[in-house]
């Protein structure tokens, strides 16, 4: 294949170069659309001192929760970190630093990181603990705070389908933070359910162009459901 072929042959290769104390931007919302196997590979590697930006931190025994078991995470940048006893314990003991970031601000910080926007103003968090220590400014009579972009050494994300060039399609609400996460890492690693031949994806329907993707791997996914809620027929 060509120089645009992003497919790597193993998870080890997918995460090659990950070192202690690096920053990782991760896709996923709860356990939905998380890069399950990339997280497991990070656990296998035993990399320590990681800063991870992700909307959530998984649950005990699943998702990013796996990385807490061996205390691999130094700092978590997230909007919601409930439902995780190990997380709570490490946070309370001070082993784990947490930077709570509003969900929309986190999504926009990742997008900004990928899009070369170093900082932006938002009303979100003004007058709250999130705004403390941040610049405040009025535009058209309304107060806003300055939020900075976030970038990572690595991105880890999960998509539905890709072609070998790394053009990505996501599925339903498993899209969530994944597209922005991909754009915000120096080395963007994406795992997918299916890799199709180049030309099989309609160019108009590609959610994220392959230019953002450095490494691509096909995985199999457990897809744990956090809250299985059903109605009766």
């Amino acid at each position: 294949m060509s120089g645009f072929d992003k497919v790597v042959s193993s998870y080890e290769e997918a995460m090659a170069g990950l070192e202690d104390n690096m920053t990782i931007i991760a896709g996923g919302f709860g356990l939905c659309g998380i890069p399950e196997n990339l997280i497991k590979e990070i656990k296998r590697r035993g990399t320590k001192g990681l800063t991870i930006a992700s909307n959530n931190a998984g649950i005990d025994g699943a998702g990013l929760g796996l990385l807490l078991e061996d205390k691999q995470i130094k700092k978590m940048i997230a909007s919601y970190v409930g439902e995780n006893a190990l997380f709570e314990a490490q946070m309370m003991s001070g082993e784990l630093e947490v930077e709570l970031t509003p969900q929309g601000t986190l999504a926009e910080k990742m997008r900004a990181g990928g899009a070369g926007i170093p900082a932006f103003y938002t009303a979100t968090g003004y007058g709250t603990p999130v705004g403390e220590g941040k610049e405040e400014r009025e535009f058209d009579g309304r107060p806003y705070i300055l939020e900075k972009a976030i970038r990572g050494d690595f991105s880890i994300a999960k998509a539905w389908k890709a072609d070998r060039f790394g053009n990505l399609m996501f599925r339903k609400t498993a899209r969530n933070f994944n597209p922005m996460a991909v754009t915000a890492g120096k080395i963007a690693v994406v795992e997918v359910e299916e890799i199709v031949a180049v030309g099989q994806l309609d160019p108009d329907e590609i959610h994220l162009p392959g230019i953002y993707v450095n490494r691509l791997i096909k995985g199999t996914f457990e897809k744990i459901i956090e809250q299985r809620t059903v109605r009766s027929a």
Partner: protein
Amino acid sequence: MALTREQLAQRVAQEFQDGYYVNLGIGIPTLAANYIPDDVQVMLQSENGLLGMGPFPLDEEVDADLINAGKQTVTMITGASLFSSAESFAMIRGGHVDLTVLGAFEVDCQGNIASYMIPGKLIKGMGGAMDLVAGADNIIVTMTHASKSGQSKLLAECTLPLTGKGCIDRVLTDLAFLDIADGKFILRERAPGVTVEEIIGLTDGELIVPDNVPEMVF
């Protein structure tokens, strides 16, 4: 009588207008979806990237890739659309959602809201709540009027860390529906059988009581 959870949800649903895009927080706000009037169609926005959220799935319809902001499995209605979290909050922050309904621990007569953090207790995070209160023009906060021990949650000034500053102008409690304007609560409706005096007694912030305060109608 104080409103039940179901009555609170019913009263919220009376605010739905045909063609409204609505974001409903976890808890009572979500229940309001069960009481949408027959002649009204609303489209539910779920901030994890879905516009047009439907009911919970049948057992055989469950899809791990289709959840709501509470991480519950859901379905899509006909005409739904899917998008990224950045797009979802562009929608919210940009004021494109017509109505947002969410819960709170406290509100005050300056329009401040505290809903995500009780110091000393576990801090789980604000999720999308700060974005929702900052982005929406039209917000209804649903909450109990006072704690079980009778302490007002409608305050002169919030005591808990804020979720948003000066962004709330309507509060629905189990006792009353109130507006907030010019640093005061304004009593608009009372729960059936609840007296104005009871409400006055349980409201800490300055309260304006118009001559006529009708009972809510269900």
